[in-house]
């Protein structure tokens, strides 16, 4: 018999204190999913948080879905679709057997109402650019929807797979008002919203009528699990212990140090998403003194050892990043992007700074015209703190003094909206090169999310060309130019491409992880008891 590790026992005790008695005495078809932080609300139009999307993918559906290969668009609420030659009119044929959790029948009018609510200024909707430049949405009949754009949007179908495009019951929005997404969220997904205790748990029940899941699921519905409880367990040790002691059943938030430990446990099934695009980078505020100097930015890039960071704080589980987006993502311009400045070469970094007149002083740091080569970085906590300390050590060897200010997640978003820092940390999900470039490099996106303050008319023009391209080739060409331009400018230090691991506890079959928006369970239809 295996002796439980002290970590397991201690963590189990701690977790037991957190979980209510009802959870501990859970029925066989209740599954507890552990995660680190809660969402601000479960409204698809008013939150960009991954925590929101995780639940919305389960409680709602989108017109189309994304295959685990992260490239192929699959039907979901739409059975089929056509795109006009000018790329401005999308016509969707919808399923006629779909119902909301409330029992209301789903029709094209619900899609129209959902998008119009998102775009309505009164909603204060987020990332509305992901809807494209909408001219009009028409519900031709119950099962036909026309989505007309003012200008083509080559990324539209990819964006339509994201949770922002979740179809909601507009009657419930009117009924709940500001409480929509807080006290309820009526969708057509495989699970139904039951209750939410912020920062504690979200309870979802099986949608019994559900049978229209994406075709890449073996079970397209209804779910084989009756109840899913999304439980907030912030401490790494507690999640690791919880999954081993059956206090929790699933987590994708496995600390890197625990992956080998869980993989070695025959009762735990750890899976990895085959395609997952989530990149960690450190950005320069290029309008600030020193950070505005290309030579300094290149030297700093060369001084950072991404491989050591991937093997250190990420325990060898992440992939060192030498480009701003993952090489396997759609439209990555491998042949156009020059990644030679993104490898580790300390001597070259020192030489660049020497040539630029930055000489080493008595304290080991570099000076020029009496000014110290010192930059201030704002950073997140947790693993970012370890990454930034490693980077600080690397830069110190090149004579660069990096000051780090670490902020809690509740504070840092406000801080990142200011102009008071030279560098900042960030990680982000994306489905394509266009998705990433359109997020961070349009001049209109300053100061957030374009925190580097990149403002270039040519870039804006190319981004526009990419967005409105009518062919895959034209889209690729436009985005390749942007990728080359921003990589040459060394405005980021790419750190690692994050992997996604999913751990399923002893009661469950292995769960294939999906890479969409960092929400590994996606529709939750692969969750099944042994």
């Amino acid at each position, binding site marked *: 018999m295996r002796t439980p590790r002290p970590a397991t026992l201690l963590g189990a005790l701690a977790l037991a204190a957190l979980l209510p008695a009802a959870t501990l005495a859970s029925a066989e078809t209740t599954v507890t999913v552990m995660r680190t932080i809660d969402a601000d609300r479960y409204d698809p139009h008013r939150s960009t948080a991954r925590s929101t999307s995780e639940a919305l993918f389960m409680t709602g559906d989108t017109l189309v879905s994304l295959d685990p290969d992260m490239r192929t668009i699959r039907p979901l609420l739409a059975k089929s679709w056509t795109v006009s030659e000018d790329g401005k009119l999308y016509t969707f044929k919808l399923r006629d057997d779909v119902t909301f959790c409330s029992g209301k029948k789903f029709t094209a009018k619900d899609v129209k109402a959902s998008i119009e609510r998102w775009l309505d200024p009164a909603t204060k909707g987020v990332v509305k650019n992901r809807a494209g430049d909408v001219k009009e949405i028409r519900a031709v009949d119950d099962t036909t929807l026309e989505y007309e754009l003012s200008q083509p949007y080559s990324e539209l179908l990819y964006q339509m797979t994201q949770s922002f495009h979740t179809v909601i019951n507009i009657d419930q929005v009117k009924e709940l008002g500001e409480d929509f997404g807080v006290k309820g969220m009526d969708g057509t997904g495989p699970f139904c919203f039951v209750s939410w205790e912020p920062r504690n748990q979200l309870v979802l029940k099986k949608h019994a009528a559900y049978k229209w899941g994406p075709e890449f699921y073996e079970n397209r519905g209804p779910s084989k699990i009756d109840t899913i409880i999304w439980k907030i367990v912030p401490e790494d040790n507690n999640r690791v212990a919880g999954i081993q002691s059956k206090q929790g059943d699933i987590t994708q938030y496995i600390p890197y140090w625990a992956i080998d430990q869980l993989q070695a446990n025959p009762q735990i099934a750890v899976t990895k998403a085959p395609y997952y695009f989530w990149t960690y980078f450190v950005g320069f505020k290029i309008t600030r003194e020193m950070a505005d100097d290309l030579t300094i930015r290149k030297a700093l890039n060369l001084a950072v050892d991404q491989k050591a960071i991937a093997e*250190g704080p990420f325990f060898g589980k992440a992939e060192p990043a030498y480009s701003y987006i993952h090489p396997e993502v759609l439209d990555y311009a491998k042949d156009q992007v020059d990644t030679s400045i993104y490898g580790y070469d300390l001597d070259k970094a020192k030489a660049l700074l020497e040539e630029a007149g930055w000489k080493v002083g008595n304290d080991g740091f570099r000076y020029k015209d009496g000014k110290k080569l010192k930059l201030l970085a704002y950073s997140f906590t947790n693993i970012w703190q*370890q990454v930034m*300390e490693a980077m600080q050590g690397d830069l110190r060897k090149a004579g660069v003094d990096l000051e780090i*200010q*670490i902020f809690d997640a509740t504070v840092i978003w406000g801080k990142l909206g200011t102009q008071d820092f030279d560098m900042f940390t960030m990680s982000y999900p994306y489905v394509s090169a266009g998705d990433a470039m359109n997020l961070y490099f349009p001049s209109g996106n300053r100061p957030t999310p374009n925190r580097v303050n990149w403002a270039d008319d040519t870039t804006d023009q190319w981004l526009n060309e990419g967005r409105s391209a009518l062919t895959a080739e034209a889209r690729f060409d436009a985005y390749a130019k942007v990728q080359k331009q921003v990589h040459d400018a060394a405005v980021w230090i790419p750190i690692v491409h994050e992997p996604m691991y999913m751990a399923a506890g002893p009661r469950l079959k292995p769960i294939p992880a999906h890479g969409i928006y960092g929400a590994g369970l996606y529709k939750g239809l692969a969750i099944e008891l042994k």
Partner: protein
Amino acid sequence: MTELSATPAAVLPAETAPDRYRRPSIWRKLRRDRAAMLASGFLTIVIALGLLAPWIAPYDPYDNNLRNMLKPPSEAFWLGNDGQGRDLLSRLLYGVRTTLSMGLIAVGLGGSIGAVLGLLAAYFRHLEGPIMRVVDVLLSFPSILFGLAIAAVLGAGTFSITVALTVAAVPSIARITRGAALVVMQQEYIAACRAIGMSDLRIMFRHLLPNCASTIFVYLTLQLGQTILLGAALSFIGLGAQPPTAELGTMAADGRNYLFFAPHVSTIPSVAIFMIVLAFNVLGDALRDVLDPRLRQ
């Protein structure tokens, strides 16, 4: 006038003759307390190590090498390596220096401010109300809350944490000083000082303060341990020293995720905090036993 001016000296000028005779007695009594001697010996060594850290640390405490990450103690690295592959022994020496500096500055500064406020409250009765109400307000705030508030305004770092610790030390010392000063104020020599026309400032700092000094000193010694502990706690939650500064609380926090497979990273600085706080508490208790006249009797 001549007769009166002679009286105070005859009555009891606290800082003069009797103190000189008392000192050897205190030291002798302290030497009899083995625990106190052990604590002072330990603290002397710790302070010396902290002061000499730049010269005796075997490695640069900021030199990271991720290939040595979380390595256990070895011949090359006596206490092992931390999560950045840095030498833990070197960081411990520098960490002691930072932690003690924060504690000593905060208690020194907070103690001085608190003592002055306490004296003013005792001596000028019209100031007593306002000063003590402010002290009451300060006492009603948990120290951690002070730390959070000050870090929010000044930003996290050793400076803001020292400010927080200083503010936290003021009210209790002010209260203790006021209590001690009120007792001394009843003594005849204070009345005599007033009678001969001595200035208020002179009475407060030449006669009142020296006679409260032993009480304040004992309390400061005890407070030092608590301040170091509070500083470490604030650093542990991320409000203290920022990377890469070595500080015991921050070092303990850095290692908490690796507790089960690299326990040395967190436990070594935690044990150091424990030992230092314990030593200050033992020393403070012993000093109280020796200096408190009631206990002496």
